[in-house]
């Protein structure tokens, strides 16, 4: 049969955003693929060159609209490296709790979008219901539902409100049971298993060499996690362990392993939050005033000439990195160059190539299992 190219995207349910996958098919079999990105390139790196260090945070929020808090944190650690700021421990705990709430919300968004890909429409409604709990919590911190602009160079914008801790604990404990419900529904669904198992194999070493990171690596059987390997924040003081799977084939992790590892990661995030809220210095029901030294350290606004800042951060989809070169034009108020490493920008071309040899109907299952987000990919 003749081979032909078909174009999936930019508007296609498989893409989870705006990008194009060009697929060469031989009947139902994929024989070649090509990814095209850049549909929503906004030039954040260029814009950042004319903004000062606090003004850049909202742009970083908007890099990925389902995990704004982790992206803003990721930027802030690079700015703190550049400006040489020590952060109060209470602020680090608050950032940890906020980032893990965001990870839960982001993984729920992933599961909610992945369900309909596979044919389980119930998942969308269930996940949106539970994600709302964490968006409400994040709204209490940042003041809005999606783009919080919450971390500051040297700490956080404001302290946790009185009563936040009780609501957080109640919601997280409820959600721990909900994870069991999800698993009962999915792991006993024949459709779910048939569509996910034995599809989309990816080996650990291949993935690392190609620059894939985060849960996708842990699904392939190694507990490598930026949170312990390039430590930041107070992850060494709270109770958790990196989620890791045991892949069933020599060909590496399949879509089912990647689904399992994200479910386990949600459990670990819950465990971390429950431990951190009890250990937070200054007490969980105290509310310090804005700018108090418990939550915000004094930070310089100008970077030294020739200084650089770098952060390596476990974002919800993998390792995000920021690299800032400061001291432009002798002013130092703005970054001279700000560079963003998006995990999905590297992962999408890799995933496109792993699809070769599978059927066209497997494409949504494989692509969705890597959790693509185009906002951060195109920057």
């Amino acid at each position, binding site marked *: 049969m003749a081979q032909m190219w078909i174009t999936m995207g930019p508007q296609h349910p498989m893409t989870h955003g705006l990008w194009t996958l060009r697929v060469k098919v031989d009947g139902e079999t994929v024989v070649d693929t090509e990814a095209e*990105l*850049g549909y929503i*390139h906004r*030039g954040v*790196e260029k*814009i950042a*060159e*004319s903004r000062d260090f606090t003004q850049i945070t909202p742009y970083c929020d908007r890099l990925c609209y389902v995990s704004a808090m982790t992206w803003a944190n990721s930027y802030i*650690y690079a700015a*703190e*490296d550049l400006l*040489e*700021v020590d952060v109060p421990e209470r602020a680090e705990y608050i950032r940890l709790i906020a980032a893990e709430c965001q990870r839960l919300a982001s993984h729920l968004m992933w599961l909610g979008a992945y369900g309909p890909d596979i044919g389980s429409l119930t998942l969308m409604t269930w996940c949106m219901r539970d994600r709302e709990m964490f968006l409400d919590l994040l709204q209490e911190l940042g003041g809005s539902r999606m783009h919080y602009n919450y971390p500051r160079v040297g700490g956080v914008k404001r302290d946790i409100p009185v009563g936040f801790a009780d609501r957080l604990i109640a919601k997280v404990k409820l959600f721990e049971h909900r994870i069991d419900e999800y698993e009962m529904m999915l792991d006993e669904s024949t459709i779910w298993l048939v569509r996910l198992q034995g599809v989309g194999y990816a*080996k*650990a*070493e*291949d993935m*690392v*060499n*190609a*620059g*894939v*990171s985060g849960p996708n*690596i842990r699904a*392939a*059987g*190694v*507990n*490598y996690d930026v*949170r*312990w*390997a*390039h*430590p*930041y924040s107070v*992850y*060494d*003081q*709270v*109770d*958790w*362990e990196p989620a890791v*799977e*045991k*892949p*069933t084939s*020599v060909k590496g992790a399949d879509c089912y392993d990647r689904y399992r590892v994200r479910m386990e990661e949600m459990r670990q995030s819950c465990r*971390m939050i429950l431990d951190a809220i009890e250990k937070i210095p200054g007490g969980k029901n105290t509310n310090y005033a804005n700018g108090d030294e418990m939550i915000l350290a004094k930070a310089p606004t100008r970077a030294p000439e020739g200084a650089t*800042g*770098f*952060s*390596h951060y476990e974002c919800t989809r993998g*390792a995000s*990195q920021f*690299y800032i070169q400061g001291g432009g034009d002798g002013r130092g108020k703005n970054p001279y*160059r700000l560079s963003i*490493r998006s995990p999905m920008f*590297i992962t999408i*071309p*890799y995933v496109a190539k792993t699809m070769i040899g599978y059927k066209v109907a497997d494409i949504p299952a494989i692509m969705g299992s890597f959790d693509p987000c185009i906002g951060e990919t195109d920057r």
Partner: protein
Amino acid sequence: MGMRITNAQADAAAEHAVASLVDRFGGSDVGATVEHHANAHKMAFTRVNVPAQHWTAVAKHLRFDLGVNYCSMVTGTHYPEGGAERGWEVVYHLMRQPVVDQAPHTNTVHVAEELAGMDVPLELEVVITLPQGETPTVPSVQNIWVGADWNEKETWDLVGIQFEGHDNMHRVLNPHDSPDGFHPLQKQHKIRYHDFNEMYDDAQGFGRKPTDEGRVK
């Protein structure tokens, strides 16, 4: 309790990498130093300064002798006022990750504090400084790290660094029909709304003109 790589482990790994690089490339212009971040846990990393003509050799040494298996980020910077010797800079961020393929039904659970030698995660910053000129050129390392492929495409697309030997170079973030020689992160391209004073003086923007009017856009 959570675990983490200690500062002593990171220091030892960085010092080992520096010693290995100095041993192999001592006497050439390749320089390696141990640096420390100023944020969070003040972790150590290795900064390597490489002239462009030695970059392929250094990259092979990093990959095959030091086990650096992960190319995470490539950053290009334009310094139009940096002097004759420093017109452009390319920074590669590389990592070593203790990740190996697994036999079926097994996994590797590292305990951070017990890692030693080549298993300790390592972070490298490779800085390549290029002289002024229209065509800054660096050898591509796409064949050594697959992850460098799209990073280098992006760096060419946005900054205009040429990667010699790169297979299949094309636009990734800019439109495919962008004019030749248009690389928006070069410093001659200014963004339009530049300063807040401008915004207040002319809030509607009627009197405003792009500062790079008349140039390639």
